[in-house]
């Protein structure tokens, strides 16, 4: 029952996607828009296949930047959230600032990194770190700070130290928020690396896109977009699986109660 339900669950959006692609293809063919303005999905896919090995090369370096940046962002976010959660005055001093800094579109700072750190990998990784850091730290911190105080009291009354409380109570109960933050970050990570590459790079999907754009190869640009979307999707999915793996107790959510 549950299984077939989940298949239907996945099937409906897939059909919707196919319908949209069909409308797109039909509209492009009927209106005879030239391919250098708007290619149809069929042409994009054939471009994707023709340039696959080249695209794969560029994808590799973009992915590397995104993964390193994401990994570092998660580590830094974890340490910051831990420190703020443990030290109350630090939390009061820094938490509001963190929320406000979220309103700065980090991407607009990317050109500065180019000036400061050159054309290599470092500025891209920095952009990814900045973009991925905030969702993780804010979510994790909210999770840590919103633990049931009665639960903390209970553990204190049983003689638990601060680290015991963090390890046994706060961290596990903050895990859903932590993963929610990581999913948001993961969907931004590839994008951040690509934007870093737009501004100046010798390789990567962003570099490939700027070259294609300059020669009016919209199909190549969109092929790269497809890869970026696919990568982000896979990445979010991987974190989904990790979440299920790390939090086995949520799997029983819909099972019936025993009396």
């Amino acid at each position: 029952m549950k299984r077939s339900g989940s298949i239907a669950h996945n099937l409906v959006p897939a059909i919707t996607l196919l319908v949209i692609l069909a409308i797109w293809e039909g509209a492009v063919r009927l209106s005879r828009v030239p391919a250098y303005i708007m290619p149809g999905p069929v042409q994009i896919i054939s471009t994707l296949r023709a340039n696959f090995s080249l695209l794969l090369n560029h994808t590799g370096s973009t992915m590397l930047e995104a993964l390193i940046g994401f990994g570092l962002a998660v580590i830094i976010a974890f340490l910051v959230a831990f420190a703020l959660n443990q030290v109350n005055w630090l939390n009061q001093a820094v938490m509001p600032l963190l929320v406000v800094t979220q309103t700065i579109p980090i991407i607009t700072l990317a050109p500065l990194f180019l000036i400061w750190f050159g054309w290599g990998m470092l500025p891209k990784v920095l952009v990814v770190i900045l973009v991925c850091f905030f969702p993780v730290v804010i979510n994790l911190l909210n999770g840590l700070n919103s633990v049931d105080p009665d639960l903390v009291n209970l553990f204190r009354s049983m003689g638990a130290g601060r680290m015991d409380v963090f390890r046994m109570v706060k961290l596990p109960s903050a895990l859903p928020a932590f993963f929610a933050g990581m999913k948001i970050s993961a969907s931004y990570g590839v994008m951040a690396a690509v934007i870093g590459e737009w501004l100046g790079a010798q390789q990567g999907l962003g570099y490939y896109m700027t070259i294609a754009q300059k020669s009016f190869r919209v199909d190549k640009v969109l092929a790269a977009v497809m890869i970026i979307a696919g990568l982000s999707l896979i990445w979010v999915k991987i974190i989904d699986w990790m979440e299920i793996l790390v939090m086995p107790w949520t799997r029983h959510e819909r099972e019936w109660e025993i009396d």
Partner: protein
Amino acid sequence: MSAIDVQGVSKTLDSIETLIDISMSIDCRQFVAILGPSGCGKSTLLNIVAGLLTPDKGRIELNGEDWTGRTGRVSYMQQKDLLLPWLPILDNVSIPLVLRGVRKREAHDTARKYLQDFGLDGFESYYPRQLSGGMRQRAALLRTYLFTSDIMLMDEPFAGLDAITRRKMQLWLKDLCAKYQPTVLLVTHDIDEALLLADTVYVFSARPARIKLRLDVLHADSGQREQQKRDILSVLEAPATTVY
């Protein structure tokens, strides 16, 4: 020497007088219930006995030692089961042992011995959300018991349960206490629960709480129990301004 000795405790919380000069003495292996209107400060008293709050005046002695404002001597069970949703039942009830430094396997072995009596046999690897409310409360009680078995505080432990389950749990707790003989201080607003379980019942006034009545429960026959119930009700329903 009494197990719990509350000596002239007063407490003001957020500039509201909550407890005024509460004194009570609970002997070893006694089951004492505190009855009172809701919000009268019963839970505050338990928090003070548990050491989570420090009284403004007065002191708490446990087995003759001063434990005012210090946690760790008594175990404390609340209305919420406060089980960790991410741990199976056996791990949940073993927590107090693990926190004391007992190795996980030994803690599990110790906890397993009690599963039968606490009605959790066969459910040790279930997660809390897979269990019914009554079972979760029994698991919470086992965790409480494994922390400190001789003095236990309970704050309306069955208030969140439906009437039928609550009745079953009360009868079960009565048998359990007859077998393990702990000292229990129970806060409740259920007169029947107090008369069923307790040896002695204290009735508190509305806030600021004072002791209005101390009653040794007669377990002899139902007629006497009805009389005692009427006595308690008449005290509880007396005008709030009356001071005894």
